[in-house]
Structures are given as structure tokens and as C-alpha cells.
């Protein structure tokens, strides 16, 4: 069977292996590296990670489903994760979420039909001094307001 994960993935894992006394410890790094390749974690990728580590596929799912950063369902090309925890809510994050919902025509947790955007609410990102903050895929955007959000969305829609 053809492998779903690339040579780059396996090379990276081989490099990491000597860093840990057990192979299972590679599970989180492996899931990160796998998600980097697919932008989410399809079932066959989870199975291949299980095979590589030498554990039952259910064990991989048990762990992957514990952590919010692993996407077990496909997400849009631009995954917006807006923090609405205390510091960001105090600085207007809820208004920004509403604005995005309206502008993108989706609710929290949904993906646009063209698969360009997924909108999520995020818990504290550790950027409270520069609130409101969000992650756009892996990237932080801070000191947001509706105008800056519009600039970002307009740039991504182009």
C-alpha cells in the first residue's frame, strides 16, 4: 500500500527518535508533522502514524482527540481561530467574531462552501496584552479590531 506520509515526515521522525526514551513519545510530534502535510488528519494518516509508532490506531485517536489543535475533520484553507477568552472578550473579541460570521456567512465551527475559510472560537492564546488576538492557521494576529479584521479577510479573499 502506498504511504500517505512523505519522506520528509519519516526523515523528521528518524531525526527525533533518539531524543526520547520511548517511541510513543513521538506521537504528538508525529501528529503535528502529519497535519502539516494534509492541513488536517485524515483517517488513513492516523492509521499510518499508528503503524509507524507501533501502537493500535485507536490509541492514536484517543490521544489526537484530546488536543484541540489536531483537526480530525477537514478545515478551510484559512483557519481563523479567534480568542474569546477573558482578556480578548474585554477588548471586543465578541464583536469581531460576529463580524466574521456575517461577512463569511458562516457560524462558529463552520466552513465556507468554497472551503476557503473555517471559523473557530479559541481559548486563551497567551497574547492578552495585545488583545484581541487570533490565529490564522499557524500565525498570530494581535491588536485586532473590525477594520484590521476586514483588511485580513479582504487580502485572503483576493
Amino acid at each position, binding site marked *: 500500500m502506498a504511504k500517505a506520509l512523505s519522506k520528509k515526515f519519516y526523515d523528521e521522525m528518524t531525526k527525533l527518535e533518539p531524543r526520547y526514551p520511548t517511541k510513543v513519545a513521538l506521537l504528538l510530534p508525529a501528529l503535528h508533522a502529519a497535519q502539516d502535510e494534509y492541513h488536517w488528519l485524515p483517517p488513513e494518516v492516523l492509521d499510518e502514524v499508528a503503524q509507524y509508532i507501533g501502537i493500535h490506531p485507536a490509541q492514536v485517536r484517543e490521544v489526537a482527540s484530546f*488536543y484541540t489543535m489536531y483537526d480530525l475533520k477537514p478545515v478551510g484553507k484559512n483557519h481563523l481561530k479567534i480568542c474569546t477568552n477573558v482578556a480578548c472578550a474585554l477588548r471586543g473579541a465578541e464583536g469581531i467574531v460576529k463580524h466574521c460570521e456575517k461577512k463569511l456567512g458562516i457560524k462558529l465551527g463552520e466552513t465556507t462552501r468554497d472551503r476557503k475559510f473555517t471559523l473557530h472560537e479559541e481559548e486563551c492564546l497567551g497574547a492578552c496584552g495585545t488583545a484581541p488576538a487570533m490565529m490564522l492557521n499557524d500565525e498570530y494576529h494581535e491588536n485586532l479590531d473590525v477594520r484590521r479584521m476586514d483588511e485580513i479577510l479582504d487580502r485572503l479573499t483576493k
Partner: protein
Amino acid sequence: MSNAVASGETLYIQHFGNEEARSLEYYLKQMKGYTALKKAFGMKVEAIVEEMKASNLRGRGGAGFPTGTKWGFIPKESPKPKYLVCNADESEPGTFKDRDIMRYTPHLLIEGMVIGGYTIGAHIGYIYIRGEYTREAKLLQAAIDEAYAKGYLGKNIQGSGFTFDLTVHRGAGAYICGEETGLLNSLEGKRGEPRVKPPFPAQAGAFGGPTIVNNVETLAAVPHIINRGGKWFSSLGAVEKSGGTRLFCVSGHVKKPGLYELPSGGVTLRQLIYDYCGGILGDKKLKAVIPGGSSAPVLTPDEIDVVLDIEPLMKIGSMLGSAGIMVVSEDYCLVRLIWRITKFYDHESCGQCTPCREGCRWMKDILWRIENGNGRETDLPLLLDIANNINGKTLCALGDAAAGPVSSFVRKFKADFEAHIRGKRCPHAP
């Protein structure tokens, strides 16, 4: 970049915002980089532990445990390898100091970890960094690569015969992994569920070996302490029991949010808000302050003359925690705020302990109905009862962290809740 205001002697903040500070070259030239390590290699490990104890450095992650004492718990001989783990999960809402240490002064942390490893006899170290900090993880890795290339990490460090390997390990979005045993499970490739204690990590931690888990700011203080002495570090603090400076993270409704490095116990909450942060946004009325991350019970405007340190805050029923101070003006609804906080704990509860798993959900749902005008008079005693049934009845501190804020908001701001219940709507709603 956050505002950075210094007061007195500071250890970190003058470098924050300076992109050059993260390079090894800058660290060696401008920050006496890796001189503490050389000094430590010439010291007996017992002497290092004594310096750490004399420094009165107390853990900066939230619990405030004396670092020197913690290091002393590690058994000298162990059949299993020992580990030093840096807790860089920084997930307590309102906290954002470790991020700046890692992105602007990563070598301080690396040097602190090598000294820590040398002291406790660990040859392997991990920095467990929250998954969202992707950029910080890359910057740390770059600094680690530099340190390896120049012989500050790896085999026979600077000819000392001591070996120390350091690996950045990324989390993947789980607040509970900031709890040290949840973190260790996560590091081992498991769900980040906290463990039953004892055994404590110092006896059986990562991969079953004796392990010390320290916060980023704690470990970054170590080179300063070794270079200039525990007594000097202790004298930086304004109170006897708490040494050093502290990075206070201020957010919410203040004019100048950001990081403020001040002597431990050196300012009151009022001074921090009004003298350093410029007062309340829009000169509005202060309504409430959460002084130590969202797990800390809330304070009223009458309580802000408290000195910002561990004991004074504990005395008035709250805590300094991770020094994440969130300031709330009259502009935001407190019922909505405590609902947000409770929603967070409900989301982050690992689900092992029934009181926390079920209790957080109940409290969240009740707060939501109050916020939406569907609350009942009996809801307030009910909330207090649920909180009381979570508090102290769970494996880890997440349960207490969810219960304390709810009871404090209900007790101290009862009128706000009653206004919702009696008026059948949120007074802040448009």
C-alpha cells in the same frame, strides 16, 4: 509588542522587543551569556542548591513553590535517568510573560536549564511549549541549534565533562497540560490527564524517572542567581520571602496593557493599575480585578490596595498565581465574564474527575441562563453549592480553579446576578 515599563533593576524587560537579543552573540556580549554556567561547573551541586534557596526564588508558574527546595527533592542516586522539564505551556488565561522570555531571551532559559540539569544530575531536558506558540518554538529551536554549535549543549559542555541534551516538545492545545503531571503524560505521548500524586514527579516523573518541572521565568532566573548570588537576587524582592523581580502581565480595561517587571511584593494592585498602566480605559469606573490568571478569585475595587505578592493575596482569599492581572471596567457584564471563564474550564476539564467534569458543565449552563434572563432566585445558592462540591474534590487544581472564581463572583457581585434574575435580562445587553 507589549508596553514595557521598567522600575528599578530589571532582568528581562530591557531586552524585550529587541530582535537582536535572541542571538547567541548578543547574549554573550551584552548579557554575560553562559558565564553563570562556567561558574556553576566550578561549584559543588549542594552549593548551587544553597544559592537557589538563598535567592528566595519562588516558582513563577502559579504555585509559588521555592525552587531551591524543589531541586533538593531529587534523589542523588537513581536507577532511572533523571529529567529536567521546562513548563512553557503558558495556558493560564491572562498570562503572556513566558512568550516574551522565549522569543527575546531564549538563551537565558537554555543556560538556566543546563545549570538546572547539572545540579539535579539530569542529562536530558525538554521544553514543553504550548502548541499555539509555533513561532516561539522555532525561535527556541534556532537558539538551541546555536548553543549546540558552540558547545553550550550536547556532550562535554565547555570541557566540563557534563552532557545535556535539550529538546523542544510542542503541545497541541490543552490547558490541562500546564498542570505538571498532565504535561508529563502529554510529553510521553498520552492524553494530558493529570496523575494521582504521590508519587510526585521528583520521585517518578517523565518516563518514570525523577523529574523536576519548572516554569520558563523560573529557569530564566537561574543564570542571574548563579552570577550574582542568591542573596543579591533575594534583595531584589521587596518582601523577605519573595526574591527577584516579577513579570506582571496586565490586560483588559487599562490604558496601557502589557508586561511590567517590578520587584516581587514591591507594588500594590492599585499602583500597578493607576500608576503604571495609566488607569482605566476611557477613565471608566473600575468594576473588578482578577489578579492571578483566570483561576484566581476576583477582587472588588475596595480590595486593590493589596500588595501584589503570594501571601498578601492569599490572605484576602485570592492568589497571585501566574501574575496575569485582568482589569474589568463597568463596561463589561460580570455575569457574562464569569460565564466565559466557566465555559473555559468546562472546555478544558480533562474529564477524569466527576465533580470537575459535571460541575463545570452545570455551572456554565446555569450562568448562561442567568445571563440570558432565564435565571432563578435559587440559582445563586445552587452555584455556590456546586462550586463547593468541586473544590478540593479533584485530582488536580483545575477543579479548584473553576470553583473559586464562580463562588467569588457570586459572593462579591451578588447584585449583578440579582439584577439579571429579577430584570429577566442582562442590563448590559443592547
